[in-house]
């Protein structure tokens, strides 16, 4: 019993990290139909930013890293995506691909290809005993911070004027503009929030792995896409749900697969996702044609 609970906590922690990544991607998709491959590079920049500010107290370094990534997200919007806004999904996707390679190349030039190690949140390496379970302090932090961010995002979208404008823009961008919703403001806000989520995901990711490479954003961004497809396109909370389900599948298979089969864990995770999508082609909570926040 306690082993199951232990695994559930691990799944919750991993799912929180996945959810932050998936939401950062899903937010931009719902507002402007952009599948942003360069989201992984925002995560990567967040990781390196932690290294650049490593001499500062962690809280300050974290705030600066978040600010840097938000700045990069806004710059991405202004320099790369604004001129192709309203273009087809393929054009947006290719633009994000190009941007992703460009940023990776740039960081490679300055930071080199060799992995760098970073000690982030090392103080949270210890565990605490809760009800007979040994839970890492880092896991508690990840779960708690993510919960606050998800609730904060929900509050923002439900209760603030700008949030309602974003929901309207996600449903019908043209009509929202005809009512006076400022397209630039809404899109920039989406990029800003997406950047903030990417930066916080980067902090947790680097705290868990301790290493940085210029290509470190690829794997998280793929996980984010899978979580979105699994949860259901077009609804933000579904993207978060998909992230937690994906993490649950992953952690449970890791824990309970017999040793001989364990190396095939990822294959089995994706097999499970394929099976789910066969029965729910639009994702667990998705509906055909529904694209909304």
């Amino acid at each position, binding site marked *: 019993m306690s082993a199951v609970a232990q695994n559930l906590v691990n799944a919750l922690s991993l799912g929180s990290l996945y959810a932050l990544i998936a939401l950062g991607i899903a937010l931009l998709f719902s507002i402007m139909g952009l599948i942003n491959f360069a989201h992984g590079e925002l995560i990567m920049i967040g990781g390196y930013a932690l290294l650049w500010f490593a001499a500062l107290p962690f809280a300050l370094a974290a705030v600066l890293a978040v600010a840097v990534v938000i700045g990069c997200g806004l710059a991405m919007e202004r320099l790369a995506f604004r001129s192709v806004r309203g273009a087809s999904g393929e054009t947006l996707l290719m633009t994000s691909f190009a941007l992703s390679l460009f940023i990776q190349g740039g960081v490679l030039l300055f930071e080199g290809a060799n992995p760098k190690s970073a000690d982030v949140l090392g103080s949270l390496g210890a565990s605490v005993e809760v009800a007979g379970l040994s839970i890492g302090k880092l896991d508690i932090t990840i779960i708690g911070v993510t919960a606050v961010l998800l609730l904060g995002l929900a509050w923002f979208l439900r209760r603030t*004027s700008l949030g309602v404008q974003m929901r*309207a823009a996600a*449903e019908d961008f043209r009509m929202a*503009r*005809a*009512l006076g*919703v400022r397209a630039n403001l809404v899109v920039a806000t989406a990029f800003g929030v997406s950047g903030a989520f990417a930066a916080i995901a980067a902090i947790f990711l680097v705290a868990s792995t301790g290493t940085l490479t210029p290509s470190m954003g690829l794997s998280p961004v793929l996980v984010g896409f899978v979580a979105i497809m699994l949860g259901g396109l077009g609804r933000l909370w579904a993207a978060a749900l998909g992230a937690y389900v994906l993490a649950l599948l992953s952690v449970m298979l890791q824990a309970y697969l017999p040793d001989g089969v364990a190396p095939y864990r990822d294959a089995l995770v994706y097999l499970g996702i394929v099976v789910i999508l066969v029965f729910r082609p639009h994702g667990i909570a998705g509906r055909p044609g529904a694209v909304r926040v």
Partner: protein
Amino acid sequence: MTLLEVSGLHVSYGPIDAVKGVSLSVERGDVVAIVGPNGAGKSSTMLAIQGLVRTRSGSVRWRGTDITGWTPERRARAGISFVPESRGVFRTLSIGENLRLAGCALATGADVSERVQLALRHFPALADRLSERAAVLSGGECQQLAIGRALVAAPELLVLDEPSLGLAPVVLDELFAALAALRDEGLTILLVEQNVARAVKLADHLFSLRGGVIERVDEPDELLRNPSYRAKHLGMG
């Protein structure tokens, strides 16, 4: 005073010319109706006025200023409120959120709640349902919400594209009574309407659009006095 002046407007969708040189103007306080068959270019003209389609040539002037290159949101803020043929109601938002959304066309610091209350005076049935999702509304209620929402923006010009489309006759009576009340309050209205009999009773000027060009301009009073027009278009002997 001329509020809106459209001159030589051309709108194309790829190789198809939808609007081929439409010119019209709307004076403050007037109700101008555009009538015509399907495919005449009525909706494209409306969309071009709101900046939702690109114009190939020609210009749209608003209170003397050329706004042809303005974004839709800038036009909304300048005082043009648009109700599209589809109503443009956000189904995932509540009725109240739909109404308040139009407040973003108001100047910063404007009292959106007060504007919502004013708009609800025209459509009191919505007032008790502000927290309900707009998806539950019927066609007629959607139209009420769409027009009420347009009023929240304190428009100088209300642009309506086919407001009567898909509505039952009894609902139409209410809708046109509300539009007549708005006209009597002095609101300037530009509407596209296939229901000529309704348009004639509401409008001060009637533009007939066909094949992307304006075929004729009429004064409804004269039309109503013309027996052959009455028989042909209004079904009145």
